[in-house]
């Protein structure tokens, strides 16, 4: 809790959640709209400071989120990294393990990196779906969004970024242990100015009286999203959007039917997949076959393999590169979006 820089009513309430009856009626207060406050935390500072949650980037699959503390050491497959040698460094720095050799890049904890650092957790929502649902929900500063369930907190972290400043994310998780873990993570990420986390089964207990007619968008990541629709209707503003994420076609079918029956329009079902490209340099032996002069290019190539220049040439052509499609996620889930009909309909 000491890491958080912006304690808020929501955070206070959320912090209390662990000690109260999980299914009591919600006592959430709507956060007052703060006057335009300067944002000065890890998302905009230039250097990593004691207490900051930062990212150490080692490779596409080795991305670590750590909280910097004097005297501590981060251990990972790349070596031992002393926090004291990281604190005070600017972001983008290469930090080296004491044994030398490998370096990690010190980066700001963007929601993207947070998601990637969570890949060891099961069933997290990934970039393509997160960015799409942000657009579908029109998540932006000042808006109030509800999320059920919280899960790994991967979506929450991204939504909180989109809602800051002055917005609020109320996120609900019915699995108690998981909610506690998420709560701790949100504190670590320093997003408790925006995120209110609660242990609650929204399908049975709704989103709470306080949010009635106050919410601009709702995201559902539940096994039976259709069961939450009546509760969504209670809290969502007229014309607000609900997005449900479901792996199975039948779940989407059922939720779509329920939404249409409940007066939602523009019910749309989407699937998005990210395909990634790899690239490798065409090796020199292959290039010998080419009829064009090879000496010049090879020299340029070798130069590039030395200590890289600060600003890579941006005008290069595809000549020496080979692109191939990388393995990808074959399926994550379907996104179902619908708009609540306006007042009077």
């Amino acid at each position: 809790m000491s890491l958080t820089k912006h304690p808020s009513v929501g955070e206070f309430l959320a912090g209390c959640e662990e000690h109260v009856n999980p299914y009591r009626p919600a006592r959430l207060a709507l956060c007052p709209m703060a006057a335009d406050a300067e944002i000065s935390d890890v998302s905009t500072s230039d250097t990593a400071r004691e207490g900051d949650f930062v990212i150490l980037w080692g490779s596409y699959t080795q991305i670590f989120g750590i909280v910097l503390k004097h005297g501590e050491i981060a251990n990972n497959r790349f070596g031992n990294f002393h926090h004291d040698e990281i604190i005070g460094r600017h972001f983008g720095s290469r930090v080296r393990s004491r044994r030398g050799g490998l370096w990690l890049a010190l980066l700001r904890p963007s929601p993207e990196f947070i998601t990637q650092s969570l890949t060891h957790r099961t069933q997290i929502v990934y970039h393509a779906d997160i960015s799409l649902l942000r657009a579908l929900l029109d998540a932006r500063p000042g808006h109030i969004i509800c999320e059920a369930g919280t899960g790994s907190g991967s979506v929450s972290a991204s939504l909180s970024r989109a809602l800051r400043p002055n917005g609020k994310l109320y996120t609900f998780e019915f699995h108690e242990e998981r909610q506690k873990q998420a709560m701790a993570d949100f504190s670590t990420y320093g997003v408790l100015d925006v995120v209110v986390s609660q242990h609650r089964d929204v399908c049975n207990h709704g989103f709470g009286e306080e949010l009635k007619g106050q919410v601009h968008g709702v995201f559902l990541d539940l096994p039976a999203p259709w069961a939450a629709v009546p509760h969504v209707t209670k809290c969502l503003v007229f014309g607000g959007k609900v997005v449900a994420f479901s792996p199975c076609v039948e779940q989407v079918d059922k939720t779509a039917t329920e939404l249409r029956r409940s007066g939602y329009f523009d019910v749309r079902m989407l699937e998005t997949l990210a395909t990634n490209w790899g690239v490798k340099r065409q090796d020199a032996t292959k290039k010998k076959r080419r009829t064009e002069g090879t000496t010049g290019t090879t020299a340029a190539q070798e130069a590039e393999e030395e200590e890289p220049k600060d600003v890579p040439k941006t005008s290069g052509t595809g000549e020496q590169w080979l692109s191939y499609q990388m393995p990808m996620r074959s399926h994550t889930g379907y996104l179902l979006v619908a708009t609540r009909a306006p007042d009077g309909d």
Partner: protein
Amino acid sequence: MKAKPTLGSHVVLRDLEGAQKVFLLSSGANRQELRMGKYSAIPLETLLSCPYGAILRREADGGWQRVRHSIEVAEETVEVQENNQHLAQDNSAQSLSPSEVRDLKQKCSGSEVVEALASNSATFASKTKFAQEKYLKKKAQKHVQQVTLLRPSVMELCETYYKQSRNKVCGLRYDYLSSLLCQADVRSGARFLVLDCAAGLVAGAMAQQLAGLGEIYRLFRGSYPEKGLLELDLSESEKSCVRAIHLEALESSDPWSSEWLRLPEAPGDAEGEAIAPGRAEARLTRITKRHNDFKSLEAKAVDGLIVVAEDADLCAEVLELGLPRLSFGGRVCVFGHHLQPLAALQGAWRAGNFVDVRLTQLFTREFQALPLRTHPFMVADANLCEGFILCGSKVGEAEPQEAAGEDSPTKKQRRS
């Protein structure tokens, strides 16, 4: 979040065939007729009385009336096996003659025409509910004038522009736009450099995310499309974050003497004589703003660089000028349609001062989600994954520095 469109704001209208268009709601000199395709014009007052999401339908008397959303979808509990064994052309089954239909259209509302067509069709009653629904939908598209009022959100505008002409937004579909914003970590309080050839929609979406905190330096050469910026109905505070920067100033070795930044010469000048004092003052104000914007850009590295351009030349130029101004730890995101140049950048960046370099396509499909009829939409020429996003994080060592305390963020040096 306003419930209704207001005078001076924009609204997106969608007709029954799915065509979308943006309108400025104005009663003044720039008044725009609210007319979708072949529909009759919708009175401004009628539109202003409706909330976003409302449906307006043209009635038999020619007036436009708000109608309720109906549950759109036929459901059947028993699956009916569709049987096209006895296919017949629709026309032979219709007992109304074309001239009778024409007469009906003069006297009745569109929905009455559709009803008449259905009840005079020899085959309608024997169709399955699914087929009836399909029939009614098709006839309504032809005979009913109806629009839905949509909020001019980033998503809605992006789809509208994209439907109208992919070129308008450089082929940047809503999912790609949203991915760009996330990949670049566009956030309140941060500083961004952007080349936005997608009608100003990228800069506009960024401005919404910044909400008045932080800066968006929007590079341009020649045209400075603002359609997206304007039609998003941004607040003054949101708009204030966006600053235009002429590429000429960035690439010049002596920016202050560039045409774009040059101060107007004294009024006594030979060329300046004709200029009225008011205009000269306006020009001075304009140039002063440019000075401030340019100084503010050059004072500190930016946290993100976003490039959306059809022109590969322009893209390369902006990267050349922009990357040195990108802070260490900052993100760069480029959207483009051709693989080879992006793959070359990807290779160079990976070998150079970037980490987390990713070249991604998004494969996004929309489905028909109807009971017993769920499948991806069937489109013969779908642009499912036509563009590429290349992104990465810049790494590197700044100049040697003292250990920085919490309150003295290190001043980063740009490389030039």
